[in-house]
């Protein structure tokens, strides 16, 4: 493979990394409050600290609908939003918008599930000591759930690597785009193969790092 092609692969990898990095960041920014809200407004028996059944079921519906939406269609539907925010709907930066929005409900569920694992007795103790709801979330729930949260974020990143490759099919840039433009449209099986291998390696690295970090947090307890 020529240096030019290697450079191409390198640039595509960087694009994928930047897409995944920023969409993870933004999906956390959107999903974290949503997940905390889902948990906090849930039933008291499940640990809900401010039970609001109506709001909870509405939020839950929205999250479910967004999660079951096929990503490619969501992306096309969100083209106008990308154009509004970024000025274009094509390319790496523009793809971050639909990626973040697609991953946010997933993140919300993961956070909700992780918080539900926290011992309700510990939350009751924190309340009895006069913690505000905000203090319970920030100083009790999130630290207590941290090992699960780390695993959840690793899973989100892995999903986003997959989504970002798919986004390549409609002009998103990155390794998926490379695989389609060269591998599929120009019959360069070798480039396709390399792109796929790089994606697999990225997924594996995130998985291992996530597991290690989570295990290390648990071991310290």
């Amino acid at each position, binding site marked *: 493979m020529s240096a030019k092609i290697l450079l191409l692969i390198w640039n595509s990898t960087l694009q994928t990394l930047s897409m995944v990095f920023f969409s993870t960041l933004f999906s956390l920014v959107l999903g974290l409050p949503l997940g905390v809200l889902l948990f906090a407004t849930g039933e008291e028996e499940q640990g809900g600290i401010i039970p609001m059944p109506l709001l909870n079921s509405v939020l839950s519906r929205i999250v479910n609908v967004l999660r079951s939406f096929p990503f490619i269609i969501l992306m096309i539907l969100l083209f106008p939003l990308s154009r509004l925010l970024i000025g274009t709907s094509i390319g790496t930066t523009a793809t971050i918008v639909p990626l973040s929005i697609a991953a946010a409900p997933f993140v919300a569920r993961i956070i909700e599930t992780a918080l539900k694992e926290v011992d309700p007795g*510990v939350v*009751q103790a924190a*309340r009895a000591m*006069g913690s*505000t709801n905000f203090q319970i979330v920030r100083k009790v729930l999130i630290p207590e759930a*941290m090992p699960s949260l780390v695993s959840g974020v690793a899973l989100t990143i892995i999903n986003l690597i997959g989504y970002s490759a798919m986004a390549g099919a409609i002009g998103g840039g990155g390794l998926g785009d490379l695989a389609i433009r060269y591998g599929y449209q120009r019959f360069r099986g070798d480039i396709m193969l390399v792109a796929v291998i790089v994606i697999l390696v990225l997924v594996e690295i995130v998985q291992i790092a996530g597991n290690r970090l989570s295990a290390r947090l648990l071991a*310290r307890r």
Partner: protein
Amino acid sequence: MQIRLKDLKKSYGSLHAVNGISLSIPSNLIYGIIGKSGAGKSTLVRLISLLEKPDAGEVHFDEVRVDNLTKEELIRRRRRVGMIFQNFNLFSSRNAAQNVAYPLEIIGTPKAEIAARVAELLELVGLADRGKAPISTLSGGQKQRVAIARALACNPDILFCDEATSALDPQTTHSILSLLKEIQRKMGLTIVMITHQMEVVRDVCDRVAVLDDGRVVEEGPVTDIFAKPKSDVTKEFLSHLVGTDASSEEQMVQWSSKSGAYILRFRGETTDQPILSQITRETGIDFNIRAGGVQKVGGEVEIGTLIVDIQGSEEEQENVVARLREFGVHVEKEERP
């Protein structure tokens, strides 16, 4: 601080968990609340500790009514109330010292002040050297000590203990109870001790209320309740009590260093006979009875237990023991260092 409850009620659906409770808990003592499982103890303590609002009735701390506070007042009030639990409820993400620091952190205490206070509290509960220990590495008793230190961090007026010793073995229970008693005296606080163990009431409480089906069936000084129980529930609790347990034995004095200490156990019909006086008449050897009691074991067999000193020489003691055995008494020589 004195607590007064006026006709408190709390229902879950059609179940009246707390069904009209009026109590006056005086300040500066240990107040027991005993009741069977489901009697409404935890519900009552959640109402008094302001974790839940009653359906009806009032809670007063000294002269202040506290059951109808606003959200902000409630949070401020809770910060002056300590609470410990059966399952400790410590933060696993924090080490022992950080757990104790939590209540100080949430009221915005400066870092240096927190560190000093935490050290002082860990010292108080006997864990001065375990501050850095992760919670999972501590024993049950040590966890409860951390929980006690955490509950005392903000100098509360009241400490609630909901089954604080139920998850602990007898020795550990004893040491935690002693610690609580010591702290009560030192700090002059009011401790409300929720339990289903009469031993706990016997060992540390000054007054007790007996709860059944969401109501108070008996209330008074512990000595009165033990000497002349009125309700069936109280009598049942007393019948489960062990007459001679290790904790009280340690405090008993032996008559003389020459006399041997023995544990005598009687079964069934022998509990009715005046064996000891008969043997004394026959042999001229005296017994000093240090403790005793009769218990039903397994619901039907009566087992009497006596702890006695037998006066006299080795040989005389052996004679008496042999005679006791003839009467069907099980005799154990107590090993004393």
